[in-house]
């Protein structure tokens, strides 16, 4: 996590403070009990947060026979990665994966571009009725018509059973526009003014000056936007009722988790295990469910380290209102 100079200074002062006081400060019995309890609580809670992911993972890479007997609890045995390879033999899953990836990439790109431009424009005091248009955007965060009118509206616009339904409604994200606006306002106005004097137009200023300076905030909204796209499930559920080829990975996973029928049939390529009968198929169902879950989680875990840098920025800026 990147630290500002102020944070570094604070930390140094803190260390110095404790070094100075350590000699004088004696830990009482109460302090020790408190610390033990405190550490125990947080370690246990952290384990609760981490262990399920680990458990899922070791079950997808262990010997399928052992997994079926629920024998893999803490340590993986008979490690192999065929489950992941097999998964993509099932056309449905590969298709859903593609849909999720494409909506995440396209949707996020467009959302970030739109938020950047719109966020910049609403900082311009001389825009025609700027206040009104800004409020026009912001108000949409605080009310919604409800699920059914939204659905009826989408179907009126021809956005049911249509891939564009994942992309277009997400382009204008008022919250992200506010974040960009707040950020742009913190950029010294002189930069822009001097470019303006040199005869640059609004679009040139935006592209050459504002966009490069806004990278941190754009990265923040990009990452949060991408996670939102990857995780979204309700829009696939409601809007794609007659287009199973457009289901997102999350939607597929939901359907699989709720099915008790034989998922082993999905493995067209892994026929050897299917032929061995009902028990074998049931086992595959479980492994398939775990593997798809893992496939859905892995992208999040991959971007997570990058996200962390932007956590506080994202959540703190949110507290600043427009």
């Amino acid at each position: 996590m990147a630290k500002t100079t102020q944070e570094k200074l604070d930390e140094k002062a803190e260390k110095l403070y404790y070094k100075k006081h350590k000699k004088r400060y004696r830990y009482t019995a109460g302090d020790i009990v408190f610390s033990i309890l405190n550490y125990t609580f947080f370690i246990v809670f952290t384990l609760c947060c981490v262990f399920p992911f680990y458990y899922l993972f070791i079950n997808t890479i262990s010997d399928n026979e052992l997994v079926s007997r629920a024998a893999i609890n803490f340590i993986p045995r008979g490690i192999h990665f065929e489950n992941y390879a097999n998964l993509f033999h099932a056309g449905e899953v590969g298709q859903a994966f593609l849909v999720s990836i494409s909506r995440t990439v396209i949707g996020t790109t467009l959302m970030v571009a739109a938020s950047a431009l719109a966020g910049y424009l609403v900082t311009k005091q001389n825009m025609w009725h700027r206040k009104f248009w800004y409020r026009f955007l912001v108000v949409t965060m605080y009310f919604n018509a409800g699920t059914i009118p939204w659905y009826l509206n989408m179907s009126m616009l021809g956005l049911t059973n249509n891939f564009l339904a994942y992309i277009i409604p997400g382009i204008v994200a008022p919250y992200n526009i506010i974040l960009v606006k707040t950020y742009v306002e913190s950029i010294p106005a002189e930069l822009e003014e001097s470019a303006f004097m040199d005869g640059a137009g609004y679009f040139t200023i935006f592209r050459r000056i504002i966009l490069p300076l806004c990278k941190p905030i754009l990265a923040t909204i990009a990452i949060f936007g991408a996670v939102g796209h990857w995780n979204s499930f309700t829009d696939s559920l409601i809007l794609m009722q007659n287009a199973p080829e457009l289901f997102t990975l999350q939607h597929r996973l939901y359907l699989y988790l709720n099915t008790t029928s034989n998922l082993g049939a999905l493995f067209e390529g892994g026929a050897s295990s299917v032929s061995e009968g009902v028990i074998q198929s049931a086992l595959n169902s479980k492994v398939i469910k775990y593997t798809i879950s893992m496939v859905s989680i892995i992208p999040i875990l991959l971007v997570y380290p990058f996200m962390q840098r932007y956590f506080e920025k994202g959540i703190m800026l949110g507290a600043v209102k427009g």
Partner: protein
Amino acid sequence: MSNTKTGAGKTADYLYYVVRIATLVMVVIAFFPQLNPAKICEFVNKNMSLFTSGVSYGGLTKECGRAFRQGWIQESSFRLLFASSMISCIGIALAVVNGCMSIGNVKFKRLGNWFGIAGTVLELGGMAGIYNAYTQVAATDHPDRVIPSLPAFQMGLFLTLAVLVLVCTVVIQLLLPKARPEDQYEMESKYKLFLMFMPFAALAFVFSYLPLYGWRYAFYNYESGGTLSRDNFVGFQWFTMLFENAATRQDIVRVLRNTLAMSGLGIATSWCAMAFAIFLSEIKNSHVRRFVQTFTTIPNFISWVLVYAIAFAIFSTDGFLSGIMQNMGVWDAGRNLLQDPSHMWLKMLAWGMWKGIGWSAIIYIAGISGIDQQLYEAATVDGAGRFQKMWHITVPGLIPTYMVMLLMSIAGILSNGMDQYMVFENAMNTDTITVLDLYVYKLGIVGGAIPLSTMIGMVKSLISVVLLFAANSISKLLRGESIV
């Protein structure tokens, strides 16, 4: 706007208002299925607007498969219909370009007018094409199946507007002074900025404001696939039905109880995130602190479906817990705890906390680092213990943030989303897990009771807005600051 406000210039300005408004109306027509001039027979879906007819040939001919095979209608007629719709759409787009350019200088205006004239001519051509397609379709041998009908009102409206725009544009072009050769294309910067912003405003309008128009379904006796007309207008019948029909009333009471109970539990335990942050900051080893913070935040970023996948891996019949219990000999067979309907509210609270507490704590951790360290030092000198410092310094320092969060969650008490409850719902626990959002979804999307579910959603939205305003006024009263 013109350089010299002569009489002719003024007339042109007035005519421009007519042009702009008419263009806007045409754009609206292009997106409203009820106003589609291309609905020439039964096989054009009534959910198709002029725009969708002009961009999606597959959508336009979706219901025509049988008609084409049986030879009731020629496919060429539909190709003509599609091409004509597309031409009309292009015409509308050009007219919009004219509308945008009309706020520039004379040079801009004169160029824009050519766009406008070209656009309206295309529109008229498109309408002629649609009429031609209609005459072809009307010549069918099976009028009982095809039911050709000329959308006279829609076409008339569209033609009127197109002719109006055309005439006005031509007149304006004649009235406007010639641009001087040295003139550049120029536009006042306030309009330029607005034009750049307009697409975003349009999107926000279409996806956030336009759904409000769907509230009208709540006042009609509408069935999926039907139409809204004066005949099935029922006024507030669905609203009164919420209270008068015993079965519905029971449902609503049950669903409201679940909603309020689970939101209420969430609000009652919302201080936990603050406590989490305070106790976490008591851990002096910064590596451990960072480790805990990193890993307790992960669950916030996975979807509820994945949370359910995890619940499934741990608590289902052949999951982790059953495996352990069987190995230890406590249980004879695996149990599916997810099917167990007891204590549903508390379980949902627990999952919500597992997913959210690490993330919610971040804002308080940031708050703690903002508290003046001298306060703690002074308290230490005065002999305050660990808990006294927490209670008298840290907590008061975080209360303002907490109040904002609390008020926001009170404003959103009816909207606890449906993802979580949807994924955990099953036949056993549906009575205690169904919240308002999930109920509306099941009633409207799954059950097809559009008017009733719209009515419930509408009442919910209105109450939420009132609650938000109330929360905001309370915040203003207490803190002198608004939260929205």
